[in-house]
């Protein structure tokens, strides 16, 4: 919003205590006053649009460069497009993105199988290093998993 108080500089004492060295981010920020020019600064030429690009609605224009890694696709893509209709302030932005991430994991598994690749889930989780450096911990986990499975199986059999 534009500042409508035109004569603010005539307010007694205006600016007399301003001290750039007291800028809260000093010395991290080399204060130039350019902030007051807002987004009117020289920009490089725009990166060509070669993939679908989702954009924060808090931006009036695309950024000069952008990442092209993994454009939105599938069900997760539909959810991500919905999320980007809402600002970064809203749950409607972030919760759908988290949901999309989880759905995307299942989509990734399906894509692997479609491509004829059976993912080695244990290897992807780095269990070889677990075996090498924490074999006792791994044995405990395996024992607990077996125990829980046996208990659940016994309960199911009992109910039958």
């Amino acid at each position, binding site marked *: 919003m534009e500042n409508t108080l035109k004569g603010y500089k005539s307010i007694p004492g205006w600016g007399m205590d301003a001290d750039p060295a007291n800028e809260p981010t000093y010395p991290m920020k080399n204060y*130039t006053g350019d902030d007051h020019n807002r987004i009117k*600064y020289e920009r490089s030429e725009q990166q060509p649009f070669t993939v679908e690009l*989702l954009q924060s609605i808090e931006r009036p224009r695309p950024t000069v460069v*952008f*990442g092209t890694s993994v454009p939105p696709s599938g069900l997760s893509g539909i959810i991500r497009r919905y999320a980007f209709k809402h600002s970064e302030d809203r749950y409607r932005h972030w919760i759908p993105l*988290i949901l999309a991430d989880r759905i995307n994991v299942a989509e990734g*598994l399906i894509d692997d199988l479609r491509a004829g690749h059976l993912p080695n889930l244990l290897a992807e989780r780095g269990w070889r290093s677990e075996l090498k*450096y924490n074999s006792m911990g791994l044995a405990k986990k395996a024992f607990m998993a077996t125990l829980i499975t046996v208990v659940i199986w016994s309960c199911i059999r009992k109910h039958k």
Partner: protein
Amino acid sequence: MLAMNYRGPYRVRAEQRPMPEILHPEDAIVRVTRTCICGSDLHLYHGMVPDTRVGSTFGHEFTGVVEEVGPLVQKLKPGDHVLVPFNIACGKCNFCKQGLYGNCHESNNMATAVGGIFGYSHTAGGFDGGQAEYVRVPYADVGPTVIPPDMDPDDAVLLTDVVPTGYQAAEMGGIKEGDTVVVFGAGPIGIMAARCAWFFGASRVIIIDHIDYRLEFAKNYAKCEAYNFKSLEDPVVFLKKTTDWYGADVCIDCVGCEAEGNTLQTFSGRVALLQAGAATALQWAINSVKKGGIVSVVGVYGPPFNLVPIGNIVNKGITLRANQASVKRLLPKLIDHIQAGRLSPKELITHRIPLEEISDAYHIFSSKLDNCIKTVLIPSTK
């Protein structure tokens, strides 16, 4: 080319992927020589950062040799060995012009709250990262810096994030001569922050964590006091008591959203995801600092919010300072510290692992196996 491929929480693999291309006239293609796994990569690995898409390549700490440059790149040429700051910065927006290279306004189309970061989800711009044999580097004339010929490449790769982030954590603390500084988190960033606190004249540096081997490392490397919070009944009371019941002058949060130590924070932030991770370290920092003290935050927290005692910030008159490190701004000073022998970042590196074994590398770092402090991945094309 070989690159890391994220398949979901706790699942990554190395596999062949298409070579990156010049997509903008100010781009460069860099052949990666060294790339690290950062503590903040673990937030992605654990599925904590929204819009982390399956198929992404992580990695924001890397060095490499310039293979190709776009037509508008003037300062770099093929063959230059460069270190690449983790932030992608245009150098022209008002934030970059004021030295806030971590807050560039022209590198992240997907969000306004954070600038572009290599390999750090679409929330940070959707750029592929450096855990690969080759990587696209936008704004090649701005961030990448030629590695001085006398510098060890292991020191150089830690200048892309760990050293500047640790240094800026201490810098933001506004440390005065004689101050007592408390650092929460004895990961690589916390250890570096503790080490750098001395540069600003601290008279006492304390580091808090719960992993003994890291505390031992921090004590030796950063010449600081180290305490395991699990052996303290109440870390805040302990810190008050050890500062003559006054509070630390400066507290630094180098932990971020995956903190331990508070059941409510852990449950609400890491189990139920009702907040953006557990803000235990930040809570302790706020409650341990003196009235009128400064809390510096470099720990990574995701959107949308965290539960912290904001009332205590008001009532104690605390100044809260935080940012992503402005790597480019700090590089000249930090290169000088290393060349003068005042700082030796490479001592943090405990594991060197081939890129092909990235699944194991992530698991070792994430599970803190084999006394791991810092992992460097080495591509076979180096």
